[in-house]
């Protein structure tokens, strides 16, 4: 499904990713953990095609397709989805209009007929229930005035609507209370499928109690320094990042918080 080879990326001349190698097969859930500043979010953004970062070396393919040659919107249409760490507020564009435009862009790409407003409304209402969002939010501006939890649920709702091949979840658990964490986790678990890959980026272990990954990788200093099974997450929770030769005071201090 997703293959990343020797990926280097920089911003403003400063190299953030220093040779990432990662293979994710269809049906698998991978978690990337690591201290702040290790390059986790950069990796998510680079995969989605952010222009903030410059890829200087390496390759990324999705089902054999070279993602680096595709614009952000083309990647999305090929099935890449990024749940943002900080979803953007766009007053003046209603959620409904935004979601319908996105869904129809995908449908058009797949050669399917567009959904009209009534059809889409019905569909969107059903999906909004799945992530416990009041359908009234559809009429509001995109993420406008949403709480942190509502924003994250809206991200998962978008993933459910767009049915991507590769879902990248960037710190989707941050800022969530325990109830919201359950809702979001249920949504992500509903996304798990034989033909879909999920990449979770997280600072903390707690999300992984709800969404159990097949593989865990530790990203530090722009490289993956350790990979393992789900037990690696527990080990990190107990021992922090120090034993890997990685400094992260925050992660160590808060590793007991779940």
């Amino acid at each position: 499904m997703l293959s990343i080879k020797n990926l280097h990326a920089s911003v403003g001349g400063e190299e953030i990713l220093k040779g990432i190698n990662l293979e994710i097969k269809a049906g698998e859930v991978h978690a990337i953990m690591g201290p702040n500043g290790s390059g986790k979010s950069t990796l998510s953004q680079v995969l989605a095609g952010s222009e903030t970062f410059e890829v200087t070396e390496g390759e990324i393919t999705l089902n054999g397709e070279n993602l680096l040659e595709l614009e952000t919107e083309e990647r999305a249409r090929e099935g890449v989805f990024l749940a943002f760490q900080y979803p953007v507020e766009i007053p003046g564009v209603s959620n409904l209009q935004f979601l319908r435009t996105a869904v129809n862009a995908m449908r058009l790409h797949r050669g399917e007929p567009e959904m009209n407003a009534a059809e889409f409304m019905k569909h969107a209402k059903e999906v909004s229930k799945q992530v416990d969002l009041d359908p009234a939010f559809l009429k509001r501006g995109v993420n406008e005035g949403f709480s942190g939890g509502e924003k994250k649920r809206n991200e998962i709702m978008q993933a459910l609507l767009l049915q991507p091949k590769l879902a990248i979840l960037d710190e989707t658990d941050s800022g969530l209370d325990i109830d919201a964490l359950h809702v979001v986790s249920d949504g992500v678990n509903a996304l798990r499928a034989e033909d879909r890959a999920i990449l979770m980026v997280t600072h903390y272990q707690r999300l992984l109690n709800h969404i159990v990954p097949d593989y865990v990788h530790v990203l530090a200093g722009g490289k993956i320094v350790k990979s393992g099974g789900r037990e690696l997450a527990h080990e990190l929770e107990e021992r922090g990042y120090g034993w890997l030769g990685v400094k992260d005071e925050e992660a160590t201090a808060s590793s007991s918080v779940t």
Partner: protein
Amino acid sequence: MKSAPTLSSAFLQPAGEFLPGPLLELRKQRGTALVDMPLPTRKTENWKYSSRHLKLSDELAASLPSSGKEGSSLALPGYRVIFRNGVMVPEASDFPDMNGIRIQRFCDLDDQEAAALAERLDNTLDSHAVQMARLNSARFEDGLLIQLDKEAVLDQPLFIVHEVTASSAGSAYPRIYVDAARHSQMTLVEEYISSGNEPVLVNTVTEFVLAEGAQVTDVRLTLEGENVQHIGATGVRQAATSRFESHCVGFGGPLRRHDLQVRLEGEGAECKLNGVVVTQGKQHYDNHTSIEHVAAHCDSEETYRNIAADESHAIFNGRIHIHQDAQKSNANMSNKNLLLSTGAEIDTKPELEIYADDVKCAHGATIGQLDKTSLFYLVSRGIGRREANTLLTMAFINELVEQVPVEAVRDAVQLRLNDFFNQAFQEI
């Protein structure tokens, strides 16, 4: 030293012999006063950005014939009056026959009515500030007089389609005068359109006089083509507790200029002035507004948004003048602007003159660009760049578009704006 350019005498030969005597006489007087009228130059403060776009060559002085091919108006439901090249087309018009509401073309007024109107024309405008409106007063060939009696309420919007047929070069001088008696109400939609490709000048004046408690809403849509210079003026005088709303939606052209002057002359009068301007290519749009708080306890709220693409230029100049006796005035002015390209230019200038000491007066102006993070968010969901840009740009003005009264007008405006942005973002 080069002497300042003056109005060519070719412009002082009006047509329109069907006007009643008193109006012909008024026109003649106004024309005489225009002999050697200096044209605005770069040094004329209120024309400094636009004078070089004002091109009054002699070929534009000719009156356009009142016949010609019909353009395509928005075809909206409601009462309708069609003006072609400044002259009413009765057979294409359909306006109400209602008690208390009199709608007459200037050419149909008897001498007594015409004399009464002649007394009042131009009384809403500060002629020094709106130099070009004086040309209309010397040249109008017809016009529409709308009189609402006390408490009369027009039950549907009245559309006035001002069409200019540019099959030859020339000019047209549409004119509207609205006299709203106490507690009367109406909604007017002025639509300015064109057909044909020859260079033309459209020079318009619309005047509103609102008596106590009257409520008038004016929607103004400027939709003419690339061959049209449009110079318009709107003057409003408001008595106590009257309410005036203006919704201007303007699409750019080689020259678009609108002067909007409102005088709040009676206590408790309110006005709301909304404006949306979009420009692309090398288009030019210049809005000058002026609100005079003459009486105490009046409210004014003004919100203008400009969006400029390519190498176009948009200007907003908003003046608020609070007179010494206008205590407890409440004035709010906001002008936000969006530059869609590095070659575009927007100039904004709030002008506040406050002579009373107990007033609330707020103003704000910003100029910005589309937010890159928002754009990334939209395209990361598979939305095309062009559509994403259009969505974000529409978001910038939605608040104002949604306030446009009459659903059919609102929908038509939305559609036109969408088309405009799709074209503006073609290269993306």
